[in-house]
């Protein structure tokens, strides 16, 4: 991990709410793994003060892609960064998904902006594994399928795809995966991750999820992002340093 200044090349609007930031950063591009994140300082001034964490969305040659929506002042500044401006990046941070291993089918499960890390996961896996993507959102506008393969969709209000939550949608298709060596990769709201954990334990699927927690530093010194471990009772794990990717068996969600 290091601090690096890399120029913004393009800001791509995927839909009116979701943006992709394209950054030229060969040094990070050559080492970052799917599931890791970058902590970005959006301004040199004091407001907003803290960096903003973004999981790596995709890497193409020397270029990084970060996916975000406008949540507040920080992401608004980011969406309006002039092309060519240097972005103050701290990273790569955290541990990535473990994409290796003895499985032939990868199931991607994402809710809303939780789709962000999966274009890179898909890029790494598509030559080697069968990939199925189950993508949910509150409404049709929250469903992000950018650069994903074999997508099935769900929305809470039924405006697009299956009406209901994405883990129920996955469960409706569980028969097709029962006889293959399957690994699940998930990212999304806590409630979704919780039911994904229950689902994977019920059917005995190996499952890794990307977790989230408010944090100040992103590399372990502020101790701001604890997550309860299933193995040790007397101390927490840290989302930033021990995660953000965890096997669902290792953490209390």
């Amino acid at each position, binding site marked *: 991990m290091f601090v690096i200044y890399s120029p913004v090349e393009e800001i791509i609007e995927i839909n009116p709410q979701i943006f992709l930031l394209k950054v030229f950063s060969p040094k990070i591009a050559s080492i970052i793994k799917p599931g890791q994140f970058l902590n970005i300082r959006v301004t040199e001034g*004091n407001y907003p003060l803290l960096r903003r964490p973004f999981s790596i969305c995709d890497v193409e040659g020397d270029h990084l892609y970060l996916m975000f929506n406008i949540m507040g002042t920080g992401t608004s500044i980011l969406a309006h960064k002039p092309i060519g401006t240097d972005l103050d990046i701290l990273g790569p941070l955290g541990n990535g998904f473990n994409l290796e291993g003895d499985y032939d089918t990868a199931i991607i499960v994402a809710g809303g902006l939780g789709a962000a890390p999966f274009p890179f996961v898909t890029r790494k896996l598509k030559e080697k594994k069968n990939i199925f993507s189950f993508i949910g959102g509150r409404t049709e506008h929250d469903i992000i399928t950018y650069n994903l393969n074999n997508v099935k969709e769900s929305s809470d209000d039924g405006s697009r795809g299956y009406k209901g939550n994405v883990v129920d949608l996955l469960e409706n298709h569980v028969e097709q995966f029962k006889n293959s060596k399957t690994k699940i990769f998930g990212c999304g709201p806590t409630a979704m991750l919780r039911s994904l954990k229950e689902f994977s334990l019920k059917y005995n699927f190996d499952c890794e999820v990307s977790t989230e927690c408010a944090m100040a*530093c992103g590399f372990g010194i502020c101790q701001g992002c604890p997550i309860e471990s299933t193995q040790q009772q007397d101390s927490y794990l840290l989302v930033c340093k021990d995660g953000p990717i965890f096997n669902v068996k290792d953490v209390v969600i």
Partner: protein
Amino acid sequence: MSKVDLSVKIGTFTLRTPILLASGTVGYGNEISEFTDLNKLGGIVTKSLSLKSRKGNPPQRIVETPSGMLNAIGLANVGVEEFLKEKIPFLNKFDVPLICNIAASSFEEYVECTRILTKEETIKAFEINVSCPNVREGGLSFGNNLNSVGKITELVRSVTDKPLIIKLSPNVSYIAEFAKVAKQNGADAVSAINTLVGASFNIHTRKPKIQNITGGLSGPAIKPIAIAKVLEISRQVDIPIIGIGGIMDWKDVIEFMIAGSTAIQIGTLNFIDPTAPGKILKQLEDHCTKNGIDKISSLTGSYQL
């Protein structure tokens, strides 16, 4: 060799530079050492240690506020024994004075921690945290009470000959009174300030954003308060002050020194730019060179009121 003398003295304790890294913002040194050359610093202050390990508060522990942040970590730490076994060997690799911060929930625990840790040669000084706002017992209640601060200082003093720094709470009416009591009971210095108690609500759920309800406010938002507290102590008590509170650049360091600080600690900034301490040091040196300041220590308390 720099032409500017950056060293400062806290009692008999000479620091290479006035820049220290604040407790709770550098863990036990491992991560920050990847960004900043620790050997150039005046010292690093460990995360608060207690006798036994502490799990700390459940999430959410942190929330950003305008030009600041609230934290309620709850003194999560590995405890004295594991610190000595697991953390000291790494810190031993560096030539940087290690100041051990201690936070306890009873008088006896403060004494016991100090008694054990003072035997470790790597530890050059102690900073006693009488003012953490985020633990239920001890902490702030000690820091709010003159008699308690006096008694803790006296008891800890009796078990160590190493420099003793008392970290003061700003959540009091007259901080200078606390500095006075610390001095009377044998402290070599005070550090000021710890975080201010703050709270923040989610207006939709009407719940506090931090699980602990209140947290400690840090960052540039508190700098003017910290400067005022340092000045208050400096005008009333003859004791070295280590200034802390929202330092973001070299100019802030100079300001804290003018207001009466002998040294300073960088805290929240480490989270945002862990390479900052090294840069600030260089800029301080440049400032002194340009302005004909031979000894940086001459800045301390040089205010013109």
